[in-house]
C-alpha cells in the first residue's frame, strides 16, 4: 500500500491542535515524570562516583603495638591473605609509616624533626574486594585468637582497628531511600501521564468518530485507522521527553559545576556520554508512555 507518512502526521497534528489543552496536560505530566527519571539517573551516577571514590578509601587498618611478637602476626596475616573477600594485605612497618608521614607533611618538615622518636605504630593494611564485606571481615579479624596479643589496647579494640564504616553505611542507606522514593514517584507520574494521554486520545477518537465510522465502512485497514492516534500519543511523549532532556542538559551546564565547586572533596562530574545515554533513555521512556497510553485508549474506545 502506498500510504504517505505525511497523511498520518497531518492527521495527528490537526487533532493535536484541536485538543491542545489536554495535549498540554499530557505533555507536562510526561515532562515532569521524565524530569524526575532524569534527575534520578543523574543523582544515581553522581552517587555512584562518590561511592566509588569513598570506597577506594575504605581500607581496614590494624595497628600493631610496639614490640609485638612476629609469631603472633604471621598466622593472622596468612589467614587474611587466604580470605577470598580480601584483595591484598600489606604490612607497614614503623619506619614505612614514618616515611609516609614525612611525605604527607613535606611542606613542614619541622613537625617530623621535632619528634623525639618514631611514635607511629606498625600496621596491617587490608584492602577488600567488595567494600560491603567490611563489617564481616572486621568481625573475623577481631575474633582471631592472636588479635588481642598484637594490639596496644586489648580492652578497646576499636582504637586499633580503623575502617570507614560509618560513611559507607550512611551512603548506602541514603541511596536506598532515595531510590525507593523516586521509583514510587516516577511510577505514579508515569501512571498519571498515561491516563492523560489516553484521555487526549479518547477525545481525538471522539472528535473523529464519524470519519472513523466511514473509514471502517469503506475498508480502511485497522492499522490505518489506529496510526494517527498512536502517532499523536507518541508525539506527546516525545515532546515531553524533549523538554525533560532540555532541562537535564541545562542542569548539566549549571548544576554540576556548581556542585563540584561547593563540594570540592567529592568528584562530581557528568560525562557527555552519560548525558547522551540519559537523553536516549528519556526519549525511549517518552515514546513508551505515549504508545502505551494511546494503545490503552484505542483498546477501550476504538473497536476496529
Amino acid at each position: 500500500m502506498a500510504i504517505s507518512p505525511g497523511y498520518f502526521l497531518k492527521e495527528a497534528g490537526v487533532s493535536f491542535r484541536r485538543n491542545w489543552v489536554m495535549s498540554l496536560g499530557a505533555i507536562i505530566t510526561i515532562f515532569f515524570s521524565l524530569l524526575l527519571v532524569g534527575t534520578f539517573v543523574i543523582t544515581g551516577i553522581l552517587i555512584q562516583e562518590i561511592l566509588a571514590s569513598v570506597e577506594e578509601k575504605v581500607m581496614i587498618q590494624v595497628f600493631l603495638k610496639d614490640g609485638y611478637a612476629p609469631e603472633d602476626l604471621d598466622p593472622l596475616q596468612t589467614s587474611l591473605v587466604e580470605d577470598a573477600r580480601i584483595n591484598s594485605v600489606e604490612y607497614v612497618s614503623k619506619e614505612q609509616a614514618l616515611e609516609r608521614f614525612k611525605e604527607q607533611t613535606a611542606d613542614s618538615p619541622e613537625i617530623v624533626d621535632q619528634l623525639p622518636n618514631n611514635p607511629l605504630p606498625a600496621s596491617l593494611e587490608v584492602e577488600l574486594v567488595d567494600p560491603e564485606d567490611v563489617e564481616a571481615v572486621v568481625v573475623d579479624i577481631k575474633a582471631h585468637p592472636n588479635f588481642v596479643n598484637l594490639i596496644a589496647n586489648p580492652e578497646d579494640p576499636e582504637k586499633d582497628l580503623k575502617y570507614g564504616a560509618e560513611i559507607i553505611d550512611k551512603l548506602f542507606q541514603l541511596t536506598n531511600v532515595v531510590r525507593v522514593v523516586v521509583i514510587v514517584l516516577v511510577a505514579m507520574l508515569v501512571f498519571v501521564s498515561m491516563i492523560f494521554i489516553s484521555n487526549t486520545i479518547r477525545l481525538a477518537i471522539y472528535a473523529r468518530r464519524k470519519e472513523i465510522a466511514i473509514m471502517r465502512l469503506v475498508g480502511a485497514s485497522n492499522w490505518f485507522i489506529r496510526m494517527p492516534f498512536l502517532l499523536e500519543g507518541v508525539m506527546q511523549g516525545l515532546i515531553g521527553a524533549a523538554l525533560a532532556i532540555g532541562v537535564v542538559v541545562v542542569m548539566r551546564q549549571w548544576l554540576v559545576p556548581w556542585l563540584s565547586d561547593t563540594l570540592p572533596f567529592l568528584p562530581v562530574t557528568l560525562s557527555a556520554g552519560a548525558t547522551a545515554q540519559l537523553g536516549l533513555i528519556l526519549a525511549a521512556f517518552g515514546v513508551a508512555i505515549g504508545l502505551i497510553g494511546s494503545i490503552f485508549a484505542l483498546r477501550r474506545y476504538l473497536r476496529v
Partner: protein
Amino acid sequence: MIVMEHVTKSYAKDKPPALKDVNVDIEAGEFVFCVGHSGSGKSTLIKLLTREILPTDGTIVVAGQDLSQMKNWKVPYLRRNIGCVFQDFKLLPNKTTYENVAFALEVIGRSRHVIRTQVPEVLRLVGLEDKGPSYPDELSGGEQQRVSIARAFVNRPPLLLADEPTGNLDPNTSLGIMSLLSRINKTGTTVLMATHDREMVDSMRRRVIALENGKVIRDQDRGVYGYGD
C-alpha cells in the same frame, strides 16, 4: 455472490432472534430487494453481510469468503469489495463532495493519480460532475445520497448494499436514486437494497426477499412488495 445458510442471529438470549434460519442465495449481477416492516431483520441482514456482527448460527459466504471463519484483520479487505449506502448518507460535513468521495480511496491507500482519475469519473456517473467543490449542507437530500452512492461505488466493488437509501427522500428524488442504482447494477455490480418503499418495489419488478419477524417468508423473482395490508 452471497450465500447464507441457516443463518440465525440473536442479540440477547432472552429475546427472540432478529434473524432465524435464513437461507438466501444471490448470484453475481442480480438486483435484489429486501423488504419487511421495521424490526423484521433487514438491517441485521446488512450488518451480517459487512461482518459488522457475526451470526449466532449458520454460515455466510460473501464474494467467496466465509465470514465466520474470517480473521478480524481481513475484514477491511472484505469491505473494500462491498459498497454501502445508508438512509442518513453518512457524509463528512467538513469535506466537499469531491473530498468525501476521494476520502474513501485515500484511506485504502490508493495513489493520488488513481484518485484524480476515478473521483471525477464516478461523480459524472452519479450526475454531480459540477458539484465537486460543494459541501454536503449546500446539497439537496437527493444530491447528498448521490454523493454517498458515488463514494460507495468509486472503488468499483462487486457488491453494493443499500439500507433504505430512499428512506429520507421524496418520491421523485427516490426515482432518480433508483435509476442510478439500476445503472450501477447494469455495470455488473450486485445490488442488495433493503427498503419499505412499496411503489418502488412494485414498479421495478425485481427479485424480492420478504422478511417477517426474522424469517424469510417469500423469495420471488420479478416480485412485488406484497403484504396485502
